[in-house]
């Protein structure tokens, strides 16, 4: 087969909200056939270019011209002008609104792309098991710069000025944290990297450690220099074997190259890193619990103060930062505080990695500047919801966060806005829910998690969350009353108000935010004893619509409890007293004859 000279790449993510890709592809193919070029020019469909504002996009490859706002009607012009005559279709080039100039290629268009990778800059690019490859991609340059050109105070000032805030959930200013740790005098201090990623669905820390471990090692060494510590500890969950393996290799190689250990690159600064394993307790992401766990004690939080910066690991000043936070450090040092603080919103600088999950097409990790809206994240980067289902809510911040709705979609995402909207940043989990998700069940799901993960130290979290869960269960079974809803709210408020650590102080958030935003669903559960989403098993029925049933018997054959009866070619019937609501018949029926009520 002869090589096709030109390719036309058409953005046509099957689920793209703009959804013209297939039509454009067909039109282009028709036009090419019309001029007998179908063997010379190839038309391929690609996933999203991230240029949704200018979409749909057609890219001519390999030369790189980008046509924006293309419709199927433009196919003839592209083929006739560009392919045949080699003239660019000016009309379809993107016009820079600032200058009014036409932009011909993708490079200048990248500013339109919603995602910006700072933390994930090397993920998927560098070989994580090769320190030279990391060095080729810029690792340890920031460390070298700090060690040779800066006083610790200077470096701390850069971090402070950059506006970097902790990515682990709380959003505490990182530079300030370092400064406090520096000011506390002690013979020994510790730098701890919190890699105990526990939010369900969040895996950005794992990805960074697996893809770019040296970024974290380098930043820890920088932090060590800044606060006056030679001891680094990475607290990582043992469920991350690949991350652990790559970290170990990275640490060994960094030591071999003199980038860790004694006298780092001849500067006289000593810093080494050890790995400590967590046994997979969510609460050990809380820094005091994490420190206890590292000391070999029960992973329980203690009251702050004293803060770890005053008395942490082995009673020494300890600075704890999350993986993602550390991954931001080197670029800030190299590119400067101004560069970093130019990205993001007024109080939240830089980018944030989110783990998109749930009812969204492009599940995965994304990194966007602070201030990007939920709508952009879900409907553009995420490609919208599958099966054209209606968006209902997005849960951010993991089990500590809340559910945000349609009305929050245009809220710019940052630490403070999310809290104001009744949720939180957390570690960056983002779970999208559609119309068939029951919010009572969602709240119950998260409570299930916090009940499981509570350490049991304080009464409100230990018992209160269990009671919340029981009451939600009660409601989802159709036994709830309006008074129960008041009780649900009161218990939630008290648990938040009185719990010892962040886990309990935020665990009722899913309940409170669903009560705030989806009261009607709760009321349907307690008043009408109905689950509007059809998710609560005790409140729903599978019914056969006589008119649609053709009597194929497929449902009856698949029913595990023989609840369906009926003659061949006659409408069937479900015996509700036998039905266990497994949904097998619903899945099996090809005639839409079975409905959920």
């Amino acid at each position, binding site marked *: *087969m002869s*090589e096709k000279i030109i*390719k036309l*790449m058409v953005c046509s993510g099957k689920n793209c909200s703009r959804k013209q890709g297939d039509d454009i592809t067909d039109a282009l193919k028709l036009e090419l056939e019309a001029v007998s070029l179908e063997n010379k020019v*190839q038309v*391929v*469909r*690609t*996933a999203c*270019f*991230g*240029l949704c504002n200018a979409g749909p996009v057609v*890219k001519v*490859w*390999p030369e*790189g011209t980008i046509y924006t706002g293309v419709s199927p009607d433009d196919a003839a012009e592209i083929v006739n002008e560009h392919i045949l005559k080699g003239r660019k279709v000016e009309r379809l080039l993107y016009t820079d609104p600032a200058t009014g100039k036409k932009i011909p290629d993708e490079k200048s268009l*990248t*500013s339109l*792309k*919603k*995602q*910006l*990778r700072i933390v*994930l800059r*090397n*993920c*998927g*690019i*560098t*070989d*994580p098991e*090769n320190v*030279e*490859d990391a*060095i*080729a991609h*810029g690792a*340890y*340059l920031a460390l*070298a*710069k700090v*060690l*040779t050109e800066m006083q610790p105070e200077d470096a701390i000032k850069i971090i402070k000025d950059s506006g970097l805030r902790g990515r682990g959930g709380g959003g505490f200013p990182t530079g300030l944290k370092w400064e406090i740790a520096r000011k506390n005098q002690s013979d020994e201090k510790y730098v701890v990297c919190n890699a105990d990623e526990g939010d369900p669905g969040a*895996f950005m820390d*794992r990805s960074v450690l*697996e*893809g*770019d471990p040296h970024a974290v090692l380098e930043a820890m060494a920088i932090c060590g220099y800044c606060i006056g510590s030679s001891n680094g500890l990475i607290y990582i969950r043992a469920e*991350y074997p*690949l*991350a652990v393996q790559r970290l170990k290799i990275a640490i060994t190689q960094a030591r*071999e*190259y003199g980038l860790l250990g004694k006298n780092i*690159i*001849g500067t006289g600064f000593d810093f080494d890193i050890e790995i400590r394993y967590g046994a997979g307790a969510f609460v050990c992401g809380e820094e005091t619990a994490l420190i206890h766990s590292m000391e070999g004690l029960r992973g329980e939080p203690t009251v702050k103060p004293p803060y770890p910066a005053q008395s942490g690991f082995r009673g020494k000043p300890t600075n704890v930062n999350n993986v993602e936070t550390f991954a931001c450090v080197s*670029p800030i040092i190299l590119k400067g505080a101004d560069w970093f603080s130019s990205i993001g919103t007024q109080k939240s600088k830089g980018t944030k990695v989110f783990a998109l999950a749930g009812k969204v097409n492009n*599940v*995965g*990790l994304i*990194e966007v500047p602070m201030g990007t809206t939920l709508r952009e994240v879900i409907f553009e980067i995420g490609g919208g919801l599958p099966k054209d289902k209606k968006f209902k809510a997005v849960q951010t911040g993991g089990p500590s966060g809340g559910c945000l709705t349609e009305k929050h979609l245009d809220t710019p995402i940052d630490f403070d806005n999310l809290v104001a909207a009744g949720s939180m940043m957390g570690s960056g989990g983002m779970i999208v829910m559609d119309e068939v998700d029951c919010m009572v069940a969602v709240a119950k799901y998260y409570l299930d998690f916090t009940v499981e993960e509570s350490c049991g130290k304080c009464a409100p979290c230990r018992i209160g969350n269990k009671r919340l869960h029981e009451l939600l269960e009660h409601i989802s079974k159709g036994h709830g009353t309006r008074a129960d809803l008041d009780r649900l709210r009161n218990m939630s408020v008290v648990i938040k108000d009185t719990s010892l650590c962040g886990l309990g102080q935020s665990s009722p958030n899913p309940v409170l935010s669903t009560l705030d935003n989806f009261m009607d669903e709760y009321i349907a559960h307690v008043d009408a004893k109905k689950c509007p989403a059809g998710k609560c098993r005790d409140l729903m029925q599978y019914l056969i619509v006589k008119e649609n049933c053709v009597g194929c018997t497929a449902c009856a054959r698949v029913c595990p409890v023989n609840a369906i009866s009926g003659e061949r070619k006659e409408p069937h019937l479900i015996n509700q007293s036998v039905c266990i609501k497994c949904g097998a018949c619903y899945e099996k029926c090809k005639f839409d004859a079975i409905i959920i009520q």
Partner: protein
Amino acid sequence: MKTLKSTDELVKLREDILSGKRPSDNSYPAPGRVRIRVHMGTSGIASGALDVYNFLVTELEKRNISGTVIRTGDMGYSFAEPTIEVTRAGEEPVVFGNVDTFRADEIIEKFIKNGELTDGIIPANFRTITI
């Protein structure tokens, strides 16, 4: 490799790799060569990236294609794992999603050998920083 003893040595090492003085599998491919990055974080491996990696390593050799296959972390495209990035000399990298050994075979035959694209390419939909 000996221990780096100064910033200059670090910078020089980096420059040597970037300029090609010091060979690296992960450098931009020289003419006639191809570079394949297999995204092998936990997500990739769980979706079968190891099979793809092994397939590519053996098939490249069998089919006399000169190039390198590198294991990296994930790109974050969980919806399309496993993903691989293929760079032909003189061209920009192309990322393919949902790659299994069957698709890998197709990619070798169509793209690597002939430069022909296939459906299911994931364009770089993000900006990034370089250091």
